[in-house]
């Protein structure tokens, strides 16, 4: 392992399965997950390596057509397609979550057509009420049960606390990475961050942390910084884990914050253990991940709701990002058929408008062919914000 820092990140980004394959050859168990709601701490504590399953935009979907209709989240279609093509044969199993419908449906089809030794599905409640939280915790208990059986190990509080610590460290490191995009020009580009995060999601937690440390050091010291471009943008969306997409967004701008599932979103906050570790995880994952899946609303009185207050409650955390990162404009980027996020689009746009920040919605179909039109849209948007 000669390469370090960004170079290493680049290597892992281009060949994300190599390291986990190596580990597996050494007898480690590797479990894939397509959605950030899976508490990785529970895996790490049982000495299992989690691996984030991503779609492959350049791979034409051929196998998934047999089992899924065409009008369906193209990212999940692609994930499943890769699985059906045997690309995930290095996995010992997968864990999926009832996050969006496509996650849930794909999970079931996945389980029906691939024969990995381990499979677990976590049901997720729709609200964040107390009873929902407790139900979610009970679902996590269920996952622990099946994981223990599968791994032949017992979950110990000690190891779990260590794993929580390691992942909290990872959260902190990613947060520090995003700190480096605050200056203008940013010390690290959005495209570089995509690669680093995808690499981190493909490595065991300690190696990911080491990589992040190296990257932070390197980036702070290097002379060749990204250039300041026409505008500083915030990306808001579901998952953007392809560097090509990010580099299209960055062709005339700096994307200094990525509010998505392969950006800041999975690394926000930290797990705080009060008494029960699993409950602490349930609280963190259900409340801290800013995914459209969870239903949150502000009520003025039992029968009245206030829209502005509601927006503040749902998107208030974006306000300080806008000011701290000196954002000029927002790209709302979704793949077609991403229903849960798509329902949010007008509301989140309203919220940005209330802050006086221009925002544009771009939808793409997760193919290479959609990149050229995306470029025109981004440029036109930059032209509108001057």
């Amino acid at each position, binding site marked *: 392992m000669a390469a370090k820092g960004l170079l290493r990140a680049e290597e892992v980004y281009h060949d994300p399965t190599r390291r986990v394959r190596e580990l597996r050859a050494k007898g480690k168990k590797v479990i894939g997950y397509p959605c950030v709601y899976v508490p990785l701490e529970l895996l790490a504590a049982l000495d299992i390596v989690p691996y984030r399953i991503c779609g492959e935009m350049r791979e034409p979907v051929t196998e998934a057509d047999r089992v899924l*209709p065409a009008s369906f989240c193209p990212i999940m279609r692609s994930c499943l397609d890769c699985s059906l093509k045997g690309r995930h044969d290095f996995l010992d199993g997968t864990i999926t979550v009832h996050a969006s419908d496509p996650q849930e449906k794909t999970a*079931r089809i996945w389980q029906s057509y691939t024969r990995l030794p381990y499979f677990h599905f976590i*049901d997720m409640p729709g609200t964040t009420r107390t*009873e929902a939280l407790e139900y979610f915790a009970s679902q996590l208990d*269920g996952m622990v049960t099946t994981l223990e059986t599968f791994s032949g190990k017992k979950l110990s509080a000690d190891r779990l606390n260590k794993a929580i610590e390691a992942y909290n460290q990872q959260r902190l490191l990613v947060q520090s990475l995003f700190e480096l995009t605050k200056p203008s020009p940013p010390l690290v580009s959005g495209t570089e961050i995509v690669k680093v995060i995808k690499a981190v999601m493909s490595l065991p937690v300690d190696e990911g942390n080491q990589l992040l440390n190296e990257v932070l050091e390197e980036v702070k010291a290097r002379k060749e910084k990204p250039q300041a471009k026409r505008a500083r943008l915030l990306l808001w969306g579901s998952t953007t884990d392809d560097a090509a997409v990010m580099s299209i967004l960055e062709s005339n701008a700096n994307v200094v914050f990525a509010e998505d599932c392969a950006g800041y979103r999975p690394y926000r906050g930290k797990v705080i253990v009060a008494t029960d570790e699993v409950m602490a995880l349930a609280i963190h994952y259900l409340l801290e991940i800013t995914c459209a899946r969870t239903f949150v609303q502000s009520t003025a009185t039992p029968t009245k709701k206030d*829209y502005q207050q509601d927006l503040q409650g749902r998107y208030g955390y974006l306000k300080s990002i806008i000011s701290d990162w000196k954002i000029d404009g927002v790209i709302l980027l979704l793949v077609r058929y991403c229903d849960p996020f*798509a329902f949010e*689009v007008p509301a989140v746009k309203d919220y940005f408008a209330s802050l006086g920040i221009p925002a544009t919605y771009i939808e793409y179909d997760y193919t290479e062919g959609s990149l050229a039109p995306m470029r025109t849209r981004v440029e036109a948007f930059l032209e509108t914000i001057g």
Partner: protein
Amino acid sequence: MTTGEKKRVINRVKAMYPLRAKVDESYMRSLEAIKAGKPTVWAMLNFCYGDPVLKAMDIEVVYPENYGAALAAAGVAREYLDRADAEGFPTHLCGYSRANFGYAARLMELGGQPPPEAPMGGMPKPLFLLSSVAVCDARYKWFQALGRYLDVPVWTLEAPLPGIREFQLKDCYEEMVRLSTRHLRDFIAFVEKAVGRKMDWDKLDEIANLMMEINRVSHEINELRKAKPCPMHSRDFWSAMPPALFLLGDLKESLQLYKNLYDEVAERVKNGTSAIPEEKYRLVFAELPPWHSLDLFDRLAERGWNFVIESFGYHPPPPVDLSHVSDPIERIARYSLQRMVSNYKDALEKNVVAGVDVYIYLKYVSEWKCDGAFLHPLVSCRSASTHLPHLANILMERLKVPSLIVEGDIVDLRLFNPQDALLRAEPFEEAMEHYRKVRREAGFDW
């Protein structure tokens, strides 16, 4: 495009008509209630979960999902859809939801007065919205997004949905019950505050029991349809289902009407009366019917196609004895969960891990002895479509039953081409014949 002359071929069950009439009646009643200023709530179809509570609290309910269909059928959906586009809702979202956004925008523009062009008097401004996590993301994200127009709170009913295997884990079911029960209790407290009245617990108890009884009879009617020839066509099921599905009107009256329906269907079974002139093929239909082209079924009936079972989402949870559960809330919760839970064990036994909405069709096809499945995926509804390719695969693999897939839509009615469906009928008959042979050779009994 027409499907030929409008000749009625299906022999409709007479006792269905009074049940069907209850739909119009309920719209009328709701209109009057609304005029009289009774609190009205917009609700998602919630499968025996929130409805008894609203009923016991004497609250009028309108169903925007149905209203979306009504707007489409009345040919006024276009305008509302355009409006939703203009409001920035991505066009791939559920067509019913988009029509509703347009409607809500217009409603509020008129100061909360239903627009004059709205069919059936329109839906009035609600007191609150009742959404549900069950079935699809749209069904709760949509109501949340309505917050742009309506300054009313949304209650989102939880609908736990663990995996088929995971359900077997210790405590899973009891956790589901606990979630649902506590959640319903909180919901009742919310409703009490919203309407400023207390729950009448005896009434809730009675309604819960009546609801279960109605659904039991309705379930039994469907069991009768296993007879050969099948005495009652899917069209009768669709026509007769709303009073049970939505707890329309007076429940005691509904119960009697379903009993009458049961008697007539039972009589037909006894006499060997078929729902169509000559039953050559027995079919199952999944999921939402093409409401605007129902006479396609008459054309298919002419060819001997009898539709004997259909639409899992519209079927009542199977009966279960919950008399030992004294708390009506818990009884409602357990009964409502029954819709999915009652199938989990069998699904696991049959190793259908893809969920109840797939398993159930295996059950339908093998118990109702279907020769083929007519699958109707919808362009703008993911939920009623996503499982269909897999369903077709598994019906073939496990039961050697072929599927005919014809695409359509819920709002853009032009997307369903009945002519196309008819053109495919001929080759599909050959396929059904072929697999009859295959099944016989493989030892199946139909």
